[in-house]
């Protein structure tokens, strides 16, 4: 069944988009991530303009992370103070990202920027995850010594001024690195159409030493709030959010996420991280391939505006 997307201005098959929402939702539920980094490339692949894809996926990720955040809220597994501090940085980052997005679009370099950010970010994160999970798998299988985290070891940036107490996470740290992390996530999210969960979770664990009990829930809250503000900013400045597309995606996404969450609980953590790492790496390579290999068509056209 074809449906005409009013903002993307193309007809798409509802069931195809719904299936994409289900599949990405399944993966996001399984790994506890938003799934924007998979959804945006998929939409570009079926012919949605990159700019519309990025803007509409922010809405989709807002919905799926909201339902996730509610679940963690019920279990009291999130740190509101931490999420709000991250958000303060995140909103500034989103605004900066949307501004850069608008500027690059005018320069004809938006597609390049989206491609480059995907390659670098997914390449690095994917490699780190694969490396870490392979070491963990080797350790559990061959019984090597587990690396113990020394309690009380603090990175220098946690000792900066403006100290805040994050009660639920049991940490007492400077607000500056927290705001900085929020800014990075918000900025990248706006440009790449990703929630940044797969970046935020390791950052919170390794940099801020947030305990694993609150990390996913807090990340969900932040993802939800930054994506919600990115949606509004994209709608207000670039007029590119396709509500119809976003709605189909989120319906598929929230359903898929439920099944994914079930499947995820049956797989050991390190194998799950290895799979996610490989997936992230594969998407990164796909983008690298596009940038490096000579394009089939050197020319492209873009509609700048309609004449009066």
């Amino acid at each position, binding site marked *: 069944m074809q449906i005409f997307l009013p903002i993307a201005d193309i007809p798409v098959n509802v069931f195809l988009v719904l299936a994409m929402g289900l599949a990405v939702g399944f993966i996001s539920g399984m790994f506890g991530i938003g799934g924007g980094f998979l959804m945006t490339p998929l939409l570009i692949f079926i012919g949605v303009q990159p700019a519309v894809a990025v803007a509409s996926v922010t809405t989709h990720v807002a919905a799926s992370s909201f339902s996730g955040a509610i679940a963690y809220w019920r279990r009291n597994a999130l740190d509101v103070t931490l999420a709000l501090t991250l958000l303060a940085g995140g909103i500034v980052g989103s605004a900066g990202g949307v501004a850069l997005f608008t500027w690059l679009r005018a320069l004809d370099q938006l597609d390049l920027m989206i491609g480059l950010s995907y390659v670098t970010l997914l390449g690095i994160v994917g490699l780190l995850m694969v490396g870490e999970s392979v070491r963990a798998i080797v350790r559990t299988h061959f019984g090597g010594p587990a690396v113990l985290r020394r309690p009380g070891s603090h990175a220098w940036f946690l000792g900066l001024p403006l100290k805040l107490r994050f009660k639920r996470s049991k940490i007492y740290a400077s607000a500056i690195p927290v705001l900085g992390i929020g800014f990075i996530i918000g900025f990248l999210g706006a440009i790449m159409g990703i929630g940044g969960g797969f970046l935020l979770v390791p950052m919170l664990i390794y940099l801020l030493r947030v305990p694993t009990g609150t990390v996913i829930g807090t990340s969900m809250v932040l993802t939800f709030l930054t994506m919600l503000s990115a949606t509004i900013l994209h709608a207000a400045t670039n007029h590119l959010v396709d509500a119809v597309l976003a709605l189909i995606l989120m319906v598929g996404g929230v359903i898929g996420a439920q099944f994914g969450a079930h499947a995820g609980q049956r797989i050991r953590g390190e194998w799950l991280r290895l799979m996610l790492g490989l997936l992230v790496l594969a998407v990164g390579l796909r983008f690298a391939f596009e940038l490096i290999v000579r*394009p089939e068509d050197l020319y492209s056209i873009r509609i700048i505006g309609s004449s009066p």
Partner: protein
Amino acid sequence: MKRAFAAALALAGLGAVPAAAAEHLITALSDHRVLITSNYSGVELVLFGSVERDDESPLRKGPYDIVATITGPRETLRARRKSRVLGIWVNTRARTFVDAPSYLAVLASGPLEVITNAEDRRRLQVGLTDTPLPELIHNDIGQVANDPFRGELIRLMRERGLYSEEPNAVTFLTPTLFRAAIKLPAEVPIGNYQVDVKLFAEGKMLARTDSTFDIVKVGFEQFVVNAAQEHGLLYGFATALMALLTGWIASVAFRRD
């Protein structure tokens, strides 16, 4: 119909056609309003026409020929070329085309170079190669002859089905009655479309008619586009609310405790 008749008369009066009372052209479109609804995936309009002769029309040596040019709303297009910079492919050069047709179909009853000569094709702007596509050069607007970007723009638009030139699209059902199908892919923009039909015989243009049709978004589609364009912030809040509702409904529906 009256307008077409008047146009033909006006042309005759201006002396654009041979002296003796020439043929008139009467055309009709199967639809003057194409509605884009949620299941829209392109449409095909039919152009009908008849060559009206009277007692004073001279006898023609050859058959009649028709060239119909359908022009969509004008827009500013940017053609970009990629080249390799530091090992990756980047858009490096670009040209801006001002007031380019968003849709351009040239439908004819035969090869254009057979229907009329090169000079008339240029003068009457018949065919894709003779359609002006002005470019923005610094702050001026002008035509650039032999610009590769122009050719590439036409090629890309043709590949997307937005530009076309079909020498066999107009068929004569009788020596004076013809029809042509106007194929509008789903990607065509909304707005006003001009249909310009020219009648040729013996290499000369005899008559010409103009008509228009509109492609409009209606109902929900129109509402969404309007909201997104005119009330961006409000639209943003509405989509955000939609995301909240969907997320909340999902968490309630799948609640496991």
